[in-house]
């Protein structure tokens, strides 16, 4: 079985499992809505401030939502010992991890589909004019987030206190991604939107570097 097919199978399994209960999705989406609301009570931004800090709000929300969402993803496997079953299969470790990564990407993507219009509405920040570029940035940033996040959730699954451990490990490592994502998004949400190429390169570099690292190290991650 080649890796791409194996990853696709893992991806399909993840999505089917989630669609049965939808518990991960609904919890994550509601969590982001709560954070977006809390932001207003914490800061009461003026429309101008909302433009400037909105980017930060979006990405912090995604980072926290992602950290909380990624754990159940792996712990679910452990509960049913499906990890062992997966390892028994001819699929390479990376195929399994990448399949899960893509699933997490889709779940967070769905969350973003809801987060973005709600944010735009509540804070009067127009996103339609820059929607295409924004979607591109969201994709790049979310991909980096779930790639590193899925690998670290496999790490945390082997440790105690994993709910707290995952954000502890993930958030510092994601700092460059956050820098880049927030700066580009802020540039896009500004009065005169502009796409900052430097930061886009940083984002892309982050994705490439950590994708490669995950690919090279996956075998050690899932061994028994």
């Amino acid at each position: 079985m080649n890796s791409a097919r194996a990853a696709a199978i893992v991806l399909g399994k993840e999505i089917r499992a989630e669609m049965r209960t939808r518990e991960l999705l609904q919890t994550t989406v509601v969590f982001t809505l709560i954070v977006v609301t809390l932001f207003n009570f914490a800061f009461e931004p003026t429309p101008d401030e909302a433009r400037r800090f909105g980017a930060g709000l979006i990405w912090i929300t995604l980072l926290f939502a992602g950290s909380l969402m990624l754990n159940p993803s792996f712990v679910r496997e452990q509960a049913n010992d499906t990890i062992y079953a997966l390892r028994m299969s001819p699929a390479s470790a990376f195929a399994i991890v990448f399949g899960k990564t893509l699933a997490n990407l889709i779940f967070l993507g769905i969350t973003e589909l809801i987060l973005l219009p709600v944010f735009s509405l509540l804070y009067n920040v127009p996103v339609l004019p820059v929607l295409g570029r924004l979607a591109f940035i969201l994709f790049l940033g979310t991909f980096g987030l779930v790639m590193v996040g899925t690998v670290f959730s496999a790490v945390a699954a082997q440790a105690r206190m994993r709910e707290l451990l995952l954000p502890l490990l993930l958030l510092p490592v994601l700092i460059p991604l956050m820098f880049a994502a927030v700066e580009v998004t802020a540039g896009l949400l500004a009065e005169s939107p502009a796409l900052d190429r430097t930061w886009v390169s940083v984002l892309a570099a982050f994705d490439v570097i950590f994708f490669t690292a995950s690919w090279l190290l996956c075998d050690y991650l899932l061994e028994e």
Partner: protein
Amino acid sequence: MKRYALVSLAMAGLLFFAGYAALFIAPDESTMHAIQRIFYFHASSGWAAMEASMIVFVANILFLAKRDLKWDWLGISAAEVSVAFWSVVLITGPIWAHPVWGVWWTWDARLTLSLVIWLLYVAYLILRTLVNDPERRAVVSAIFGVFVFLGVPLDYLSIRIWRTQHPQPVVFGSANSGLDPTMAKVFFFCSGVMTVLMILLIRQRYRLERLRHEAETLSLAADERAEGAG
């Protein structure tokens, strides 16, 4: 333990000489005067911290390649020592900044980078305390360690670009721009001392880890023996 005490004394001696050089041999700096001498500890610790962080990376890679636990011991030793040195950087920074600029902290590029790297290696240390099985602990630490180190150049780049786009008055810059030759010599001397100090501390910590491993192995064997008998 006697050998340990001797090494500790040697390290104290090194610190004493570095201090003497920084405090008395280095010439006085024209704008900041006495407080500028913190630079010799601050920047040289930074170098040693960075070197220790690199040793962690190399140890992690070698462990994954060779699976000899000795590399794991080196990894944790270098990581702990690097946190110690980054802590020195983070504490001397504000002590230097406060008299000069009136603020304790400034999101200056170097200080910010030091804080980020400090957080990363503290996370590494915490991860280790949370995994029970020695082999698994070594593997996941190595993987996390590799990711951490790969992030460091990206952190450096991001913070540089961020600071270029949103500039701030540079607190520690004057020390870098055109170092007087005596100052340069004292700086290199202090960097050398800090590097040696770093290596000695890693060796001490490594010996501790080796002992701990012995205790852990014996304890696990004892547990097995107890289970077998019961």
